[in-house]
């Protein structure tokens, strides 16, 4: 359950659900529906988006390709994972899901490898750009927000 809804639950012994909370619940239900549609689209287009993004990334930063063995393959794998967790969060309408299970852990790994914040930010901005052309606008909006969240965590 999302953190803010959990907080609401703690207060329901004393008061009813407020207008603001109901609006948030409505919005969350609508986002979850969009997230379910996103799950289908993202799955069908994931390989195309990520493959093209990795190609573009290393074209822009060729020196990073040789920093570690199998850099390109590993980026491909990791980017897919990040995207999947963003889709999970979108389907649940809960950014904390991806943060707690992927982003915080992955930030440690990324920082340890010294790729630099600019490279990391750019990598996921490219994913957002590619996703915008491959995924329908409504679904892309929720994905975009979740990737933004990932970038924010990786830069924190």
């Amino acid at each position, binding site marked *: *359950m*999302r953190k803010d*809804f*959990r907080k*609401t*639950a*703690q207060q*329901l*012994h004393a008061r*009813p*659900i407020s207008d603001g909370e*109901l609006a948030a*619940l*409505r919005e*969350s*239900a*609508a986002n*979850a*529906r969009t*997230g*379910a*549609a996103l*799950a*289908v689209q*993202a*799955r*069908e287009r*994931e*390989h195309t988006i990520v493959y093209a993004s990795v190609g573009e990334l290393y074209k822009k930063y060729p020196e990073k390709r040789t920093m570690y063995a*199998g850099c*390109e*393959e590993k980026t*491909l794998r990791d980017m897919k*994972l990040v995207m*999947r967790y963003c*889709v*999970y969060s979108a*389907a*649940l309408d809960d950014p904390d*899901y991806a943060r707690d299970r992927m982003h915080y852990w992955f930030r440690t790994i990324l920082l340890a490898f010294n790729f630099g914040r600019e490279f990391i930010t750019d990598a996921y901005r490219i994913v957002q750009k590619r996703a915008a052309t491959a995924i329908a606008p409504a679904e892309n909006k929720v994905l975009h927000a979740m990737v933004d969240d990932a970038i924010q965590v990786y830069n924190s």
Partner: protein
Amino acid sequence: MLRTILPLAESPYRLTDLARQRNYTYEESTVLESSARLRELGCGAIERLRPQEARIAESALSAAAADFAALGEAGAELREALRAAVLAILRQAQLAMATDSTEAFSKSLLSFRAPFWVAPGFTGETARTVFEALRDEALAALPGYQGRRFDEYLKVASRFMATVAEVGQVAESIVEEAASAVLARHPAVASRRADLPRLLREELLQCLATSVDAMVPDGDAQVPPFGKRIGSRDRAGLFERREALDMAAALRAAIQRHLQLARGAEFLEHVRVVTEYAALVRDAHARRADILAAVERRASERHAGAAAAMPRLRQWLGEAFDACVAGAVPGGRDEMIAALERASAEIAREKPSADLAGDCFQFLVEESEAALSSLSLIQVQHLLHRASHYFFQTCEVAEKGEAMLNGVVDRLAAEHEAFFGRRLGAKAYVVRDQEQVLYNIALGLVPGAEMTTVGRFQAFGEFLGEHGFSQDMMFRSFALLEEACLANFSPRAQSYFMPMWTQVRRYLETVCAMPAPLKKILGEAAAAVSAKHGPALARFPDAERKVHRDLLALLHTCAVTMVPNGERVLRRGLAHFIESIDDARMEPEMLETSFGGLVEAVRTHLPSPHREWLLPALERGRTMIVAAARLAPALEPAAKEAAQEALRKHPQVAERHTAASRRGAEDMVHFAKRALLGIAPGGAEWAAQGLWRFGSSVVESNYGESFLPDAYSAFHARLTREAKGPGADAFDASMKPMLEALALFSELGAREGSIVASAADDLFAKHPAMLSRYPDCRQKTAEDFRDALRYCVMGGVPGGQWWIRRYARVQMFVFRHSAFDPAVIGDAYDALASQARANLRGPGAAALAQRLELVRNYLVIAAGLGANEARILDDAWERFTKRHNGKVSTERAARDWAADGTRLVLRASALAMLPECALYQHEVGAAVRASAARGPLSPELARDAFESLREAAGAGLAHGPVDQFAAKIRETAAPVGA
């Protein structure tokens, strides 16, 4: 009392946790969409209920005004406390529905247990009156489907609060009585430690409270923490094994005496699980060190270099043992799987010798069997057995996989240069995918991991089905993988691996054959809908995309039924489909056109043999969907009318039961939905599970023997009248045996007590010495008789054979661990069968009596084996070696092979005395044949080893249909050398 077909506690979070790192499958996407719909309905419910919640609460409380008035001042206090609880529960239920999460709802319910447990005057009847009135009010405030979905939450709350009230009022007396019984039987407890009687009472109370807590939607999760508490260092050693076992029995007996639970079957089942688990935790804690030491000793005796590897192996063995104990209750399964996977990941890194590790895990099973009590083993043996195979399989893959899979991919790359030359990391991906397939098959052996493994195969299969890799290349890769497994894996690993791989390969090949004709298949099915229902479709936004999505989802989800346990995923998907149909009232003709078109298009365009593999599931899925659409409008009105009609005929039921009409009607709707699911592949088991829960509570209830049969017959007649056309016959065929079983359960409700008591009287009149020889003999005999009767009812339902199989396995197990005289067993079940024949009259009674006779025959043979198995096996080997003097190697390999094979055949043949267990006979026959082909004996000698077994069994057993059993041995072993 019947549960909804969509468990409340299965939130999208759980689904996502299982998806871990992979994409959602088509079926999971539909579940997510269905969850979003529920959340929207939940928001609507908040909007409607929020303004009137004070009125609703007041009205619910008014229903019990007389109860409060009778209590005077305490009544006013209770009323206020209940008002707060009712309001909180109403709000939490709204939030739970609007978030599709029961986490906070369960927590809130649990918070009411302590204050209401001891509230003066808070009886079960008061709780039921208030909360059933609350349900009525909420249902009146919300329209149709929305109201029914919301009611699911209040229904759980009502049951929970009624149980809190009923148990809480007498908890002290129950605990006192159970504690006194234990202390009287074990006086040493009081003298061992001064505070032990107090700790005993505390633990009994905890058992009781945990059993109540287990009734909330996330109730399964309440049991493992209880196990951890009593398994903690300062508590685990407090009581001896016998004391712990008696605590469980004494608590159950005290509950039976003090509680007349109107709907107690569910609570009593939780009590059974919790008390038996407590005994297991104690037993396991006491024996763990000895078991692990014995394993280490045996490993060192057999493997010269074992010492160096033992520290790590000891750790994994200990973890596996603890994980299996934790997994013995449903709420501990996730923890068990996580622990097994963690250990498996370490094994994959460290690559221990598979031979040594395999032996160690085998010894772990054997030593546990020797050290733990029968009750513990009933809970944990199958987990240990499966976990040992899982680890062995994992070790094989870890040890041999890398070289084996690199070999496969090198050969594949040489044949398909064009593909491997232009793809980044293609070789590494193929190796990874194949390795994952192998590990996933191994994980599929572990009970509770079914949805995890099927989901992984499904995601992989759907990926292959979408990306259209060269079919030739993919088929070749599977053939090469199979070849490599056959060449590299040991016979022991293959015995479990190959049957599962065959099914997985079938699925993977089918999805690889799909991309080429997929466009045509979906196009033709969609075109058929547009042509026939174009104007109707145009009314819905985005209709074409949705039709396409549903067709694709059904196609892929039906395909995954080829994988072991894949039917579970289809069943879940179809359960959501039934709910969507109920919500949206879809046009049956439109569904018939689209899914019928899909079946036809698959028949036309998918190549053979894939279409033959896929079509059965697809056709049944289509039939179920169409039947659901035809029945949806009739379900609720038919249920309401039938309930009212039956209540008119049986007015005493309405007097005795609060809201009987509404509750009766809602059970009927769930019953019909279960019968609908029974049409789907593997759905019969699901339908039977619901029936078992329902039937058990019917037996415990006081509806009388004809109320439910009358009500459900009227319901069935109305549905048959309303729903005609495709699907109706399949529904009828699914529902009829369930109705017959329900009638039998109703009859048992009225007569089970007298049947069991009379049978026990007959038995003890003939064998009076038994009563003094075994403690609690009469109570245990009665429990055994009750189980046999109820399981035999389930044996007559499609999908209900599982109960007979489980019963038969458990009984065999019990007889192996505690010797029983086969003649007494025969007399016992003769008495039961004759009492059942004399007392039961309903339509299924004759079949039930016949099944009881088969059970009786089986039990006599199983009891005979329990006392004589080792002797029969030794005698068989002796006869065999004598007959082939000098020709049979007496080396360990030959002796081991014969011992394993003959033991398996002996047990499977005994089980096969019951038709429901015939599958074990076939499985063992195939396994023995496969191992004989690679074993140390020639086919002729192997065949003769089983012939010797047949002779030895004939000579070694004195009771029951021994000739029939001997013939079964010949049948089981027939595939060897054939």
